């Protein structure tokens, strides 16, 4: 085997004098090593999760050895399965409650702020923009603890639990809406509105009839991202939770992973994963449909550039 592979190399060497390794000599050729790294990485990034998903269908209690397919941990087990466990079920609702409320609050506030910021550019707006972005990049544990202490000692009229959790999430999730809507505002410019006003529309009317429809795709995109991100959130909501019935699925997963993990936890995590992907896909499709006929770039790419 060894000699067989070595021989052809030896004979081809003289024909490529610039380099001993043929593919290195031609930069426009396919970089096989890079491609291999990429695929190995992609496999590495997806495989563990895939295995975790598979094990939610394990028949036995193990998360590391396969004992046969079943829906035990999803539905069949009357006590421990995801949808019938009296502790997990409310946690699912809490996850959705938090994500929906956060989206409903963060996206309008963020969108309005992006519009205001784009058109006003006053000092308070710039400062608030700085604050929005700061809240976004500061490690979550810091913001979480700060908010927790604040609700305990300053804003004591806000109870820990759902209200505090939503406030905590919105504080930094606004950033998504601001970034995405602002980017969109930059690309559409002011011409449409001004045209509308030339035709006699009032400011409010021109916003409602012209600007908002133009911003709808961006709002959809940010809503999808905010929803997906809040439903997965763990640090903020854990610090701001009250009784155990205000803990969403993510916190239950953390707790269980530290205490007694069973495939029902895999099922819970899988369920969150499915929810997130569904929302993201819907958001993506909506975005594509709404921006149809506009700049034809790869929609995925655009979605990504919005992301970071």
């Amino acid at each position: 085997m060894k000699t067989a592979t070595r021989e052809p190399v030896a004979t081809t060497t003289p024909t490529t004098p610039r380099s001993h390794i043929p593919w290195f000599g031609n930069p426009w050729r396919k970089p096989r090593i890079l491609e291999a790294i990429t695929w190995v990485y992609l496999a590495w990034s997806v495989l563990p999760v895939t295995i975790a998903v598979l094990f939610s269908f394990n028949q036995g209690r193990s998360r590391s050895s396969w004992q046969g397919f079943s829906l035990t941990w999803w539905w069949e087990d009357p006590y421990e399965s995801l949808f019938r466990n009296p502790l997990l079920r409310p946690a699912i609702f809490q996850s959705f409650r938090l994500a929906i409320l956060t989206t409903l609050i963060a996206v309008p506030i963020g969108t309005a702020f992006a519009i205001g910021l784009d058109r006003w550019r006053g000092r308070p707006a710039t400062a608030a923009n700085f604050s929005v972005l700061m809240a976004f990049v500061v490690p979550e544990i810091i913001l979480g603890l700060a908010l927790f202490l604040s609700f305990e000692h300053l804003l004591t009229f806000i109870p820990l639990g759902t209200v505090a959790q939503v406030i905590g999430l919105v504080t930094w999730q606004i950033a998504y809406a601001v970034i995405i809507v602002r980017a969109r505002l930059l690309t559409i410019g002011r011409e449409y509105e001004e045209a509308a006003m030339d035709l006699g529309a009032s400011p409010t009317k021109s916003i409602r009839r012209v600007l908002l429809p133009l911003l709808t795709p961006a709002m959809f995109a940010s809503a999808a991202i905010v929803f997906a991100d809040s439903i997965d959130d763990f640090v903020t909501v854990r610090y701001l939770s009250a009784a155990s019935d205000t803990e969403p699925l993510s916190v239950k997963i953390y707790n269980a992973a530290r205490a007694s993990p069973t495939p029902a936890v895999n099922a819970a995590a899988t369920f969150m994963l499915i929810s997130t992907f569904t929302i993201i896909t819907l958001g993506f499709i909506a975005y594509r449909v709404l921006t149809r006929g506009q700049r034809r770039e790869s929609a995925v790419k655009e979605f990504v550039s919005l992301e970071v």
Partner: protein
Amino acid sequence: MSEPEEGTTTPSRREARRVRRASAKQRGAWYPRWFWPSFATPAIVWQILFFAASFYVILAIAFGTQDFFRNPLPVFQPWWWDFSTFTDQLGRIFGGVYQDVYLRTFGYVLTASLTCLLIGYPIAYFVARYGGRRKGLFLALLIMPFWISYLMRMYAWQSLLERDGYVNDVLTFLQVFQEPFGWLEGHGITVVIGLVYGYMPYLILPLYGQLDRIDQSQLEAGRDLGASPARTFWRVTLPLSKPGILAGLIIITLPMFGDYYTNALLSQSPRTTMIGNLIDLTYVTPGLAAQGASLVLTIVVILIVPMLWYLRYTARAAEAK
């Protein structure tokens, strides 16, 4: 962020605005002065109420006092601030019992970030330059981990790394180890692997964005001038991608400094305690709020420079668009 520019361009901008307003007034429609500010107001109020105020509470508690039961009594008047708890904490960090934790955290974060870069760069480079028609597919695969919760991904590793888990199966099969390795038995390497796995996607995307923006013709120019591929990469591609590298590194190191769950799920040993774990301990242990606030302040001090840099970077990138 955009203030420097604002300073220099204000006159012309103001001029333009005046002209526009004048013409608009002639047409009979213009926005009242309060119109646009009113859009920004909710977010501004929100940020003051919840972001700025929260950090003020952190200060008030870190520099405040405690009651008999060691509940924090925040002091909101700066002239009454008492820095003793805070300096105590600093004493524990510099040369004290926390020093190792801080050094360890820096070590883990640095190792993990650089590993991310070493692995992530070639991938971002490949997708940006050679993705071709499959770019969309690659990107979709690359952002996928974004939408899988971090916890789930750590949780997945937890079972893979068990003594009888698949990782050991593979490694012993390949004869890398003679017998299964106790990955979860409190090793720094496991925590670093967890961090690399967890944060890699956040590095690759900004890096990709930067590399994708590099004009192909610049590379061709380099080659036309006779530079070898390696040299072209070194002299053209790498410098051009530097902002992306920095941005990517910052976006992953910031959360890593506050990470406690990776350690909690993959190690649980005092040997691998990170700063985030100390902060979390002050959250779960009553009576330690002042300490927690002090620890938060130290992290903010450590991270403020990279955070500001990052904010400036993104602001500039937005302007460039």
